[in-house]
């Protein structure tokens, strides 16, 4: 069977190479023509064909709110420890963003220096930022930069302008918020905790 038999869009290769890297394709991304790619996958006809095509090699396109990503079928989910550690760090970052006066939401544009400035002015934020475990972090500004770098590597943010260092929040950021929403908080601490107290 030839690739043409699937009648796939000609961007299939680009879509694969982005998503197989573990990146999200967001509707409001602009780099590498991402919004265009989003529209292509979002077209129901294309979606079905792409899904069928990628399923053969055990990749599954997952749809979120204005974003797409790949998951792998029949793959043992590995390295739980690392995953937990990573999401704990995301949680720290989201908490920092949530505590800011000017909250960062989908479509927001900001510069790391703006966040750093706010952290300098606000002691609570500053403490939060300082507690986020990162490797190189001499100044608050560098720390925020590193956070932005981390999030844009995971394709939650996009570096829109390298000169002014301005980032844009992509739709994929919803994924993190969805995860947060999925966490259920038990009303009462477990009995074990109570006995300890």
């Amino acid at each position, binding site marked *: 069977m030839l690739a043409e038999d699937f009648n796939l869009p000609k961007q299939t290769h680009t879509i694969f190479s982005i998503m197989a890297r573990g990146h999200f394709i967001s509707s409001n991304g602009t780099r590498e023509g991402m919004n265009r790619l989003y529209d292509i996958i979002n077209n129901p006809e294309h979606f079905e064909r792409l899904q069928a095509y990628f399923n053969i090699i055990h990749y599954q396109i997952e749809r979120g709110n204005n974003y797409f990503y790949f998951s792998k079928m029949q793959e043992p989910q590995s390295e739980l420890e690392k995953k937990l550690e990573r999401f704990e760090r995301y949680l720290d970052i989201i908490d920092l963003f949530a505590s800011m006066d000017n909250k960062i939401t989908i479509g927001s544009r900001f510069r790391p220096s703006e966040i750093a400035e706010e952290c300098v002015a606000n002691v609570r934020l500053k403490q939060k930022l300082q507690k986020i475990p990162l490797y190189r972090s001499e100044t608050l500004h560098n720390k925020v930069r590193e956070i932005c770098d981390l999030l844009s590597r995971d394709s939650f943010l996009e570096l829109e302008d390298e000169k002014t260092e301005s980032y844009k929040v992509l739709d994929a950021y919803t994924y993190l918020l969805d995860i*947060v929403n999925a966490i259920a908080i038990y009303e009462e601490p477990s009995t074990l905790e109570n006995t300890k107290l």
Partner: protein
Amino acid sequence: MALQVNIHDILGQLYQHRDLVAYLFANRDRVSLNELIAAGSLTQEQYLKLKSLDLIYDYEGVISLNDAVVSMFEEFMEIGEVTPGLVRDYMNELQRQLRFYTDIRELRFLRGVKKYLKRIDVALSREIIKLQKNVDDTYKNESNYRVKIQKLEDYREKRDTIISFIKSTHDIIDTNRNLFNLSNDNELFGIVSALKHSLIENLDYLIEIQTDITDYINKIQLQLDSYLKAQQVKEIKDRGQLYYQTNFKSVIESVNTLRHNNIKTPRTRISVNALFTDEGHVLCQKIAEKYKLSRLLARGIAEKLSGNYKEKALEQQLKLDTERLVERFLNQEKQNLFLYLMDYKFPKAIGDVHLEDRLSLFVEIAMEYQNKMDFKYRLEYYNYNDAQQQHRKIGYTLIVPPKLKSSKKSKTPQRT
């Protein structure tokens, strides 16, 4: 605008400073005079001239275009703030003209009625387009969420205003239907029916916009709720109870993205065959340059392979050494080329080199390096036994390194 200017002056000045005007239009309320002068896009005299014409304003060092100019551009491009008030003005004017026409059936009032009906039609559509653009733009680009929600709410109000205008326009048309009929004016009928049609269409658009606005506001609200939740979870985390008081672990366990499961991009290796192509060679050269591998650098781009290239494999291998071999030959003085080749100890890797191979190498070198060698045009003979152990004799031309005078050489070997 200053009274003494005329339209030519304004157009002339706008055209002369078109780059500046475009820049100021794009960067409203952000550009300072010093910035412009430093960038060389404005001189002090030009600034004074423009200011005297009231084309630009200067407020605390921030330069902005005259509002009239800005709104003119915005009207043309159908961007900028939504101003439904304009439609109301047209409606009031329409009603006034209708009153006049009811009293005095004069054509000039009917003309007025037509004019304002048309204007209402155009203005309503334009306002709706602007509304749609602004709603999208606010959701996508407004960075402060509180301002964002506020703006969206404002647009909701504006939408309601536009809807009420549409309804009252409808009412005006309905109440004056008899009057329109009496006028017996075909053009008026056309205008009224077109207006009615677009009123219905615009109402549909507005319903869509309403859905969008509600959707956007909900989304923002949802994000804010998620943030509250995140703060709550973080608090629990700070207390060290994340794994006991929430189902954090199981949620994260179910995360199925490639990146978070550490599934790497499928890695591919370059095929060896691809390295033998011309593109592959270019690639090799790049790598050779990077790591200073002279062996790879020396290889040229492959020529077209001849049909029997497999049989010639050995010859080609010999070819690789030719230059080296000639160099060595030129540096010695004892032997002529033919004898040198006959006695030459080829590297073991090449295997046995037969007499035939040596002969063809001899011919090859003689032809390729004839400028570097001294040809004596004198025949010498070489005796050997062939495969059938028969005695044979080969004649060859003496070829010697240029300085060596007394040695022997050949141009083409001649089998006897």
